[in-house]
């Protein structure tokens, strides 16, 4: 489906929601209000969200440790995400999972993951079920550049390929795995090349261009949905935020590099596109920003007013009923 104005506005709304939410999460951590750790995806909003927008009812995603954006992309509600960040009973995982483990099967999210590459097997298995049940659906498996150096990546790619499973491996190459630049962790320039050795098609896209992300992911998903087997997408993007809340020094990169990528801000670029193509007016964008800001305030209030999960309930979910 082509990118209608309505869809573009929806996409923009989600991107700005993610940005404002993550900026807020960053502040709440800095202020010592949130506990634990978190991985923000500032700069990667188009890459994650526009890709999710290319899915349809019944499709699934698996996410990584950097999973907030995908959650917004797939349509999870802000207040339940925020409540999980606060570790509250009303959180999407009742406060048991936290920032890295946002999971919501009703919305098609099979989970963030604390283990790099951890989603690869799960995505492949979910695709196996879709094929087995003759469902017309696909799995979009998110992973980072770093994860493509894990053994499971290679095993899962091969399985998906020989079994022709409906899964799209969506590699967000954001330049680094913590402090390790991609050019030092592998001897190829394009991760997409890795697909070839598994007999798999691949494409490369500009992950900071929401419209491209949407259109190209949509056609890849279409190809996979038609039963042609898996595909790999390499989304070239950049992590503006530090790796995690603990990554403050950032001795591994220089400020100039961050500035250069700031100039390619995916949200600014989408705004420019929308204004130029009369998808929206400046006033409309302002209104969206105001609405999202309001919604975010409500989500935080909701979280703060929610109860803590009960210690007595600890054992409740260890085993399924």
């Amino acid at each position, binding site marked *: 489906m082509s990118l209608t104005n309505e869809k573009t506005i929806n996409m923009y709304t989600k991107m700005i929601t993610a940005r404002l939410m993550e900026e807020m999460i960053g502040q709440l951590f800095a202020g010592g209000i949130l*506990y*634990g*750790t978190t991985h923000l995806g500032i700069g990667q909003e188009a890459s994650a969200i526009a890709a999710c927008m290319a899915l349809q009812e019944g499709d699934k995603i698996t996410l990584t440790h950097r999973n907030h954006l995908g959650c917004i992309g797939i349509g999870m509600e802000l207040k339940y995400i925020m409540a999980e960040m606060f*570790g*509250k009973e009303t959180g999407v*995982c009742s*406060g*048991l*999972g*936290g*920032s*890295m*483990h946002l999971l919501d099967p009703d919305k098609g999210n099979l989970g963030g*993951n*604390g*283990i*790099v*590459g*951890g989603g690869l097997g799960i995505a492949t298995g979910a695709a196996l079920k879709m094929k087995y049940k003759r469902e017309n659906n696909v799995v979009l498996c998110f992973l980072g550049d*770093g*994860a493509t*150096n*894990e*053994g499971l990546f290679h095993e899962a790619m091969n399985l998906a390929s020989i079994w022709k499973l409906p899964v799209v491996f969506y590699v967000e190459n954001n330049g680094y*795995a*913590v*402090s*390790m630049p991609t050019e*030092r*962790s*592998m001897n190829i320039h394009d991760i997409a090349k890795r697909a070839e050795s598994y007999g798999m098609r691949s494409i490369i896209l500009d992950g900071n261009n929401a419209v491209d992300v949407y259109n190209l992911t949509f056609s890849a998903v279409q190809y996979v949905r038609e039963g042609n087997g898996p595909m790999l997408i390499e989304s070239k993007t950049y992590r503006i935020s530090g790796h995690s809340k*603990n990554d403050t020094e950032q*001795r*591994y990169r220089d400020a100039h590099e961050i500035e250069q990528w700031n100039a390619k801000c995916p949200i600014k670029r989408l705004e420019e596109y929308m204004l130029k193509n009369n998808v929206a007016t400046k006033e409309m964008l302002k209104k969206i920003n105001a609405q999202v800001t309001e919604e975010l305030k409500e989500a935080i209030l909701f979280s703060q007013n929610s109860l*803590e*999960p009960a*210690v007595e309930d*600890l*054992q409740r979910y*260890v085993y399924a009923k």
Partner: protein
Amino acid sequence: MKEITYKEALREALSEEMTRDENVILMGEDIGIYGGNFQVTQDLVLKFGEERVIDTPLSEAAIAGCATGAAMSGLRPVVEVMFSDFVTLMMDNLVNQAAKLSFMSAGKVSVPMVVRLPMGCGTGAAAQHSQSLEAWMCHVPGLKVVFPSNPYEAKGLMKAAVRDNNPVIFCEHKLLYDAVGNVPQEEYLVQIGQANIMKKGTQLSVITYGYSVQKCLQAAMQLRVKGVDVEIIDLRTLLPLDEKTIIDSVKKTGRALIVHEAVKTGGIGAEIAALIAEKAFPYLKAPVMRLAGKDVPVPFNKNLEQAVVPQVADIKKAAERLMRK
């Protein structure tokens, strides 16, 4: 003596061993300019260069395998696993290769390597970044497993581990990295396989290790006020266990409380309880008691996270219960 932190103690040990022996190398994710996730290797790359402080891609299985091969060939690799939870990705290599090569080759080869595992909860990192997996490692003959509880032990055990000719699983606790303690100015080792009596006592043997040692010491102070005289054994090494120190203590006190953060079922506590039953049964005045992590994954929520592992108050209560028996 000088006062340093647990992570500084580890860093000093690594630095001294690297200076002493050019075969000692470090491998791991983000251990170079980033300094390691818990800053243990901070600035070592500046001192020893990238050839000896090797930043690896995210490839745990290959890192463990590569360390094994290098160790068989004469190097002494020290591997940092960013969080102990990721050792699961190394298990084939550690369990089926590194641990068995000396045996299977009838001693023709040895595997002198160290695998550093930051264990434990208390940082809000949730179920996949908070586990204590030491008992898994103790189930594998051919591995040695140590777990220092303070800077002195951290430094001395690390130096001993680097010099040991076997694969040593070196457990560290995240909440200890900033703990301070005294270490001698001069060189020293802490021998692998030897427990330490942290506090002498007569009425109850508390057998523990790692971060729980600190908690047990606090509990012992509170118990002292109530007239309960506790002996605290810091195991230091979990495999091979220092059976003599444990048994001698229990024979003296007649009561044993074992405390650890790892989940109870199949834990180190079970092994020690069985050992006491086998070797000191007639001396017991009360059943052996285990106080361990609850058999659940570590939850994110802070209250719940605290509730899954023994805290000072729990230890004190357990000791009092045991004294009434």
